[in-house]
Structures are given as structure tokens and as C-alpha cells.
């Protein structure tokens, strides 16, 4: 039983690592600032959720001595990052747009630029 749970926790952490990898590749290779922001959202959603759930299972069932305090702290960290990351992304996106950062290639549609003129 413990072996099975260890495999489940490893698979969850591996899924988190895969989406973190996707996010980092996106940050490096996307063509403009706003697209890089979109890619970085991958890191702070499924990357963090995967690590949190995998670590939770590990702390509660797989470790030799179950660590309840550690499990609670892991959940707090995961929720904290999930709740606060959209606020930060929103602040950075709005700030970048107001600071006059635009992609090299014109955007498909730009309703915000049209309405704020």
C-alpha cells in the first residue's frame, strides 16, 4: 500500500515538474512580454499544485513518521501561491501596458488601446 502511494506521489510531483518545465521554456522562447507572462502562469498553477499534492501524500502516508505539521504547512504554501499569483500577474500586466511596452508584431486586436484613446 505504501509503495503504491509512493508511486502516486512521485507521479504527481513529476506532472508538476513537467508543467514547470513547460512554463520555463515558454518564458525563454515566447516572442513578446505578454506571451511570456502567459507561459509563466503554468509554473504557478499546475506546477505548484502537482508538487503540493505529491508532497502532501508523501508527508502523510509515505514518510516513516507521518508529519502532520509539515502537511499543513505544505497546504498553506500551495494555497498562498495559488491565491496570490493572479494578483501579481495582473499588476505586472497592467503596469507593463501602462508603461508603454508593446509587442514588436502588432496584436490581433487591441480593445484596451482603442478604448483608452
Amino acid at each position, binding site marked *: 500500500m*505504501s509503495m503504491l502511494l*509512493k508511486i502516486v506521489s*512521485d507521479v504527481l*510531483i*513529476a506532472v*508538476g*515538474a513537467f508543467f*514547470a*518545465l513547460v*512554463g*520555463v521554456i515558454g*518564458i*525563454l522562447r515566447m516572442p513578446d*512580454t505578454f506571451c*511570456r*507572462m502567459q507561459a*509563466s502562469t503554468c*509554473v*504557478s498553477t499546475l*506546477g*505548484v499544485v502537482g*508538487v*503540493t499534492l505529491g*508532497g502532501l501524500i*508523501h*508527508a502523510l502516508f*509515505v*514518510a*516513516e513518521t507521518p*508529519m502532520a*505539521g*509539515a502537511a499543513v*504547512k*505544505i497546504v*498553506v*504554501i500551495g494555497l*498562498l*501561491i495559488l491565491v*496570490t*499569483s493572479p*494578483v*501579481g500577474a*495582473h*499588476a*505586472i500586466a*497592467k*503596469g*507593463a501596458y*501602462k*508603461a*508603454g*511596452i508593446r509587442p514588436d508584431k502588432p496584436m490581433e486586436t487591441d480593445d484596451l488601446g482603442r478604448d483608452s484613446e
Partner: protein
Amino acid sequence: MSNTDLIIFAVLFGALAAVALIRLVKGPTGADRMVAADAADTLICCAMILFALYSGRGIYLDIAIIGAMLGIVDTMLVGRFLEKGRREKHVDAAEDSQ
């Protein structure tokens, strides 16, 4: 039962954070650098969770909580700075022209 898998994943997350720092060095605008720094902060938090489970010491989790809290604060700070900096310059220009 060995915990080698956890330390492998922790090193992987640390390496990903190091790769994200390339954008921090390269990034043409301030927003790019802040996005990369935010992603690196999140990845370091994940690595710290895994390392705490590997070593069995809870102290790393406390540090990860503080890291997550301060990460949002500096992201908000830079976001507000980008927004307000432009506006104040604009206001100054309008006052000069009067």
C-alpha cells in the same frame, strides 16, 4: 524506503529556477525580468518543499512560506512602480507645458 526520488526532483526544480534566471539577465524590459524572477521564486519554493520532505526538517517549510509571501510583495511593488512611474512623468510633462 529511500527518498532519493525527492532529492532528484528538488535538484530539477532548482535547475529550472536557474534556467529562468537567463531571462532575468537577458530580458529587454523590466516586466520580463520581474516575470522571470517571480517564476524563479515559485520554483525555489517548490524545491524547498521537496528538500524539507527529503531531509525531514520542518524549518525549510517556514522559509518557503516566507519566500512565497515576499514573492507577491515584490511583484506587486514592481507592477505598481511600472504603472505609476509612467503616470507621474505624464503629469510632470503636462505641468511643464502649462
